[in-house]
């Protein structure tokens, strides 16, 4: 069974179920991306504009590892999807290492400089990594070898893409993992650093190391979300592409709506934006004469603006920025 679930299913209920899964899946993707931004922001108070570029690098790494080098398939047997998830982990790790290198070379020396300068540096990084990665992606099409491709299954009359299930599951794993990590010694040190950097230093917490871990985790999340965003039906034919990278910026409304420094906010913000976009796309489609086509793309920003009018620091954001 293949083909994408389009606008209409057999009846209203099926349409709703279909839309629900679509919304949950897109919301999960946004939440994953938002989590990457939030981890880095929480620790370092910097919005990492290079997340999109890291996402692109992640897709490129996966293609090299899984398709070109046939890792881990050349060594082990077993089902293809297991291979693919192992390759996904390796690609995320490679991107985490890239994140670490980037942090060490460009961010660490800037600690203590104005936050604005740090943000501008990440923008510069974005351009550099993107140009390099684009070249790599554009010379040969970079296939990601996604095991389920564009396949779908049926719930009643509703068609659901396996990609949706994968994205929802991945977000679940990532958020549970983050939650568990926050209870570990290192995780507690990270939360303490985010709350009061000077007091963290006074306990002997190695704040530089906390920054590095946040960057590594943020980069790994960027890679994973970039890869999932490149799957059908979001990305064209499961190729590493510009779209995967630009997708990172579509998550910004979710980050800002949820609150820049809140993990729960990333989850809720991502889901709200995903639902708003998908449900508006589905159920306002007959009004395109009034609101114009392509209005779905605007929906996240409208929701974000309305949200910010009510809560200027995001739903779960902290009002005062506790910094020394």
């Amino acid at each position, binding site marked *: 069974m293949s083909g994408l679930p389009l606008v209409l299913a057999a009846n209203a209920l099926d349409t709703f179920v279909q839309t629900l899964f679509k919304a949950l899946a897109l919301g999960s993707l946004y939440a994953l991306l938002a989590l990457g931004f939030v981890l880095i922001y929480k620790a370092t108070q910097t919005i990492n504009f290079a997340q999109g570029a890291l996402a692109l690098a992640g897709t490129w790494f996966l293609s090299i590892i899984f398709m070109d080098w046939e890792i881990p398939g050349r060594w082990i047997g077993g089902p293809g999807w297991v291979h693919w998830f192992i390759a996904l982990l390796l690609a995320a790790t490679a991107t985490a290492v890239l994140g670490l290198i980037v942090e060490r070379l460009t961010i660490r020396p800037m600690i*203590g400089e104005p936050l604005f300068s740090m943000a501008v540096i990440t923008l510069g990084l974005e351009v550099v990594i993107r140009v390099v990665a684009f070249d790599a992606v554009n010379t040969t099409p970079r296939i990601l070898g996604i095991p389920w491709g564009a396949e779908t299954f049926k719930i009643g009359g509703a068609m659901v893409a396996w990609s949706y299930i994968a994205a929802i599951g991945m977000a679940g794993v990532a958020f549970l993992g983050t939650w568990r990590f926050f209870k570990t*010694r290192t995780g*507690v*040190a990270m*939360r*303490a650093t985010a*709350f*009061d*950097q*000077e*007091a*963290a*230093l*006074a*306990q*002997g*917490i*190695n704040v530089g190391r906390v920054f590095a871990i946040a960057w590594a985790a943020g980069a790994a999340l960027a890679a994973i979300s970039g890869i999932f965003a490149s799957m059908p039906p979001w990305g064209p034919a499961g190729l590493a592409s510009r779209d995967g990278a630009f997708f990172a910026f579509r998550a910004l409304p979710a980050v800002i709506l949820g609150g820049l420094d809140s993990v729960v906010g990333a989850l809720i913000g991502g889901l709200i934006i995903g639902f708003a976009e998908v449900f508006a796309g589905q159920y306002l489609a007959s009004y395109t004469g009034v609101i114009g086509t392509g209005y779905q793309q605007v929906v996240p920003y409208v929701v974000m603006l309305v949200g910010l009018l009510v809560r200027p620091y995001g739903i779960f954001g902290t009002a005062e920025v506790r910094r*020394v």
Partner: protein
Amino acid sequence: MLEVANLEVVYNEVILVLRGLSIEVPDGQIVALLGANGAGKTTTTRAITGLLDVHEGKITKGTVTLAGERIENLEPSQIVRSGITQVMEGRRVFAELTVDENLVTGGITNTDRVSISEAHDRVMTMFPVLADRRTATAGYLSGGEQQMLAIGRALMSNPKLLILDEPSLGLAPKLVAQIRDTIVEINQSGTSVLLIEQNANMALSIADYGYIMETGKIVMDGEAAKLLKDEDVQEFYLGLHGDGGDRKSFREVKHYKRRKRWLS
């Protein structure tokens, strides 16, 4: 054990705050450092614990020595590892973390599980209030409980020298007395203490030795008992800041609070 010699600290490359400060904390003693607002007490702790960077401050002269080793160029985490931990001014507990998680941060330089759990047990015995609220969010604790948590957190690193920056600030007299007893208890178990206070009476009542600083310099020092009797000290510090342990004033505070609640 700790020796600060001729220390000069400048903020933002222009504001000279410490002007040749020298103090000493001998092994096993409690040393009080007294001074009015803005004298440079907190700046002194920052210089000792490596936190000047955060405030754009720099040591421009002088040395800090711990057990013969120069430490003024070490990172804060290295200084904690070498045996100095401070209880910061204003408690600075991690309000979003639980009591236990705050204690975890305090023990972060300690990698030995057994030693961590021993330190944890000791804190729980010392502060039964905390033992009852291990999973409570620190931000919801009362001021006194937060101060105990801040002290407990510092003890998690098993420091050889504990620096306390105005631990009695903003606490009711009964709590001040409790904190004072705690400091004595910590000292008796072998930890040297540098106690920074504006509450001179409280500090000198338990200290072995005292320093009085004004605008970045020591202007007087001596045995705590002698300072307590000194007329100038009495006039300028004891008279101004009063006795924290006075029962009558404590009852008044409580009464006032209760009345306020009734009225509002």
